[in-house]
């Protein structure tokens, strides 16, 4: 098996809340691997810690109020990103690891031309001259499919549509040909037709540039079409991790099951599934007070007393190779409970 490009171990990112009374454990012991060239989907509801996980990787968490707990470990290309000196960290940001953010409307600086903003990373990391960097910016705009790149390079963000701006964001992220692209909900703020275009673009660029992608989304449809592997997060933890096809065919964590059941499908009529679209009862608990035991147990249809008292570890799913499909659920030790319920 190849070495992972990115190895996250026991990542804990906490925030001190406004009143100073509590600590929000936004990310609470996340471990995951990302292999060269693959696309990893990071899925979960709002507030489950997806974005904080991704920001922690590049240490972009605002401190204060946030901080990454000692004992957390993020290894990229053999180095622990959490202990790097600021200068070494800068050499990785935008160069080896790049990010695309959710809001293309606000993530671009309004007072600089898109060309300048794309060229900036190339000037900083590769020492390109202003002219060479500008030529590179035009090249990148062409690559992400923006028409009239020669002219567009001198435009300001407000002169472009949302989809165009997200293409600019992608061009900006990819200008140094990073090994890893972290895309945090890159299509959430866009129209559905534009969403598909952006996803296709990411897919094509990933193949052309041979990079790994961490795709953060709450949209399972996006994951199904693009990711090789999926990590499902709930309440600051990883609850299930599996290759995409396995996860969709055989979800083992009740939360994943619920997520998949709440996606409307064309092949089963709404009337056939007892007249209603499935929804997971209850809501995500507050990060200042996660439930004891399994964090999903108050919303889980299978929960029994053990779930409320003992926190399950990540267990290997039966029938697979170790680590390929892991689930944080006691049902794996007592599978008969699932059948009884069904």
């Amino acid at each position, binding site marked *: 098996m190849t070495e992972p490009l990115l190895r996250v171990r026991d990542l804990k990112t906490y925030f001190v809340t406004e009143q100073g009374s509590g600590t929000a454990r936004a990310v609470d012991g996340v471990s995951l691997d990302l292999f060269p060239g693959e696309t990893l989907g990071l899925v979960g509801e709002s507030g489950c810690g997806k974005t904080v996980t991704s920001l922690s990787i590049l240490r972009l968490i605002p401190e204060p109020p946030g901080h990454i707990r000692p004992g957390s470990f993020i290894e990229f290309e053999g180095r622990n990103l959490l202990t790097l000196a600021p200068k070494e960290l800068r*050499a990785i940001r935008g160069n080896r690891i*790049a*990010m695309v*953010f959710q809001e293309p409307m606000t993530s671009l*600086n309004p007072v600089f031309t898109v060309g300048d903003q794309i060229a900036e*990373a190339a000037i900083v990391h590769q020492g390109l001259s202003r002219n060479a960097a500008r030529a590179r910016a035009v090249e990148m705009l062409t690559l992400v499919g923006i028409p009239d790149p020669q002219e567009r390079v001198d435009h300001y963000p407000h002169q472009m549509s949302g989809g165009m701006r997200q293409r600019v*964001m992608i061009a900006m992220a990819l200008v140094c040909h990073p090994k890893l692209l972290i895309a945090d909900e890159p299509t959430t703020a866009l129209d559905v037709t534009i969403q598909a275009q952006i996803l296709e673009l990411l897919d094509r660029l990933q193949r052309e540039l041979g990079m790994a992608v961490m795709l953060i989304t709450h949209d399972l449809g996006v994951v199904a079409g693009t990711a090789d592997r999926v990590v499902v997060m709930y309440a600051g933890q990883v609850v299930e991790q599996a290759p995409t096809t396995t996860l969709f065919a055989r979800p083992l964590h009740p939360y994943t099951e619920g997520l998949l059941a709440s996606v409307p499908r064309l092949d089963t009529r709404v009337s056939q599934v007892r007249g209603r679209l499935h929804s997971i009862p209850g809501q995500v608990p507050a990060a200042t007070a996660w439930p004891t035991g399994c964090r999903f147990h108050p919303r889980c249809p299978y929960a029994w007393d053990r779930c409320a008292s003992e926190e399950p570890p990540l267990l290997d799913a039966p029938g697979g190779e170790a680590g390929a499909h892991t689930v944080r659920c006691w049902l794996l030790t007592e599978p008969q409970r699932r059948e009884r319920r069904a």
Partner: protein
Amino acid sequence: MTAWLVRRLAAAIAIVLAVVTITFFLIHLAPGSPCGESERQLSPEVCRRLRAQFGYDRPLAVQYVKYLWALSHGDLGESFALHRPVADALADAIPNTLTLAGAALLIDFVLGLALGVYQAVRARRFGDVVLGNVGLLFNSMPTFWLGLILLLVFSYWRRWFPLGGMSDPVLCPTLSTLRCVADRAWHLTLPALTLGLVGAAGTARYQRAAMLEVMAQDYVRTARAKGLRERRVVLVHALRNALLPFITLFGLAFPFLLTGAVLVETVFAWSGMGRLSVTAIFQRDYPVVTASALVASGMVVLGNLLADVLYAVADPRIRVRSEVT
């Protein structure tokens, strides 16, 4: 853009004309008269002849029309208190005010911007809290009071700076130009600091708030994610945006360059526009008062115009909109 500029200039002239008109009638409405009848310093006969000589015995409407006619020919009239043309009095006072106000604004903006940016970067930490409180203290000080305290400490107790005036009246003419400039700078220090420090305290508070707002924007995070130095993130990506509200501040402060600071000019015996206009008001020196109002309103209008142009230069979103109209 040209049409916009023409429209703005036409509006500017109308505003200045309105201010001149209002000032003209208001100062004539004020009790008292130029030759100080109330104090009985001059015999009524002399007073009557003086009034006739300056045309103050004519109906107000006639005086107004005559004033406007002269003004349209660039004639600001004659000051009877100073016994010289108003234009000459202004020509003497304006460079002095420009020097003092220019130096004060320089201290105000440079220090205010630097402190504001520093405080925003260190927000809620020790340095920010200390500077914030010291700033509030200075911001609440009356300028004349701070001027007096500075004079007491640095000119009276420690004889580091002169007690007032703009240059040494005896020495300066005999010294070389360079030494004379140094002497003027020495006289300028305390009054410029008085105005500059109080101004900087306000500017810093303003700039800190603007900077904090910008630092929380998504594009600042984008800049960090690119691997830029923190210095570049703050001074290029954030500051460039945080300077936009600062332009408004500049536009508001601009008239001060020619109107001057009445109280500080008085405390430091600085013969600028502030002192000139106040003295003129007390002496009912009508043409000087009206001319001061003319200069002040002209500067306000110009300051606003300048701020609008600067906005268009600094903010591409405004630039494009003004091209459309």
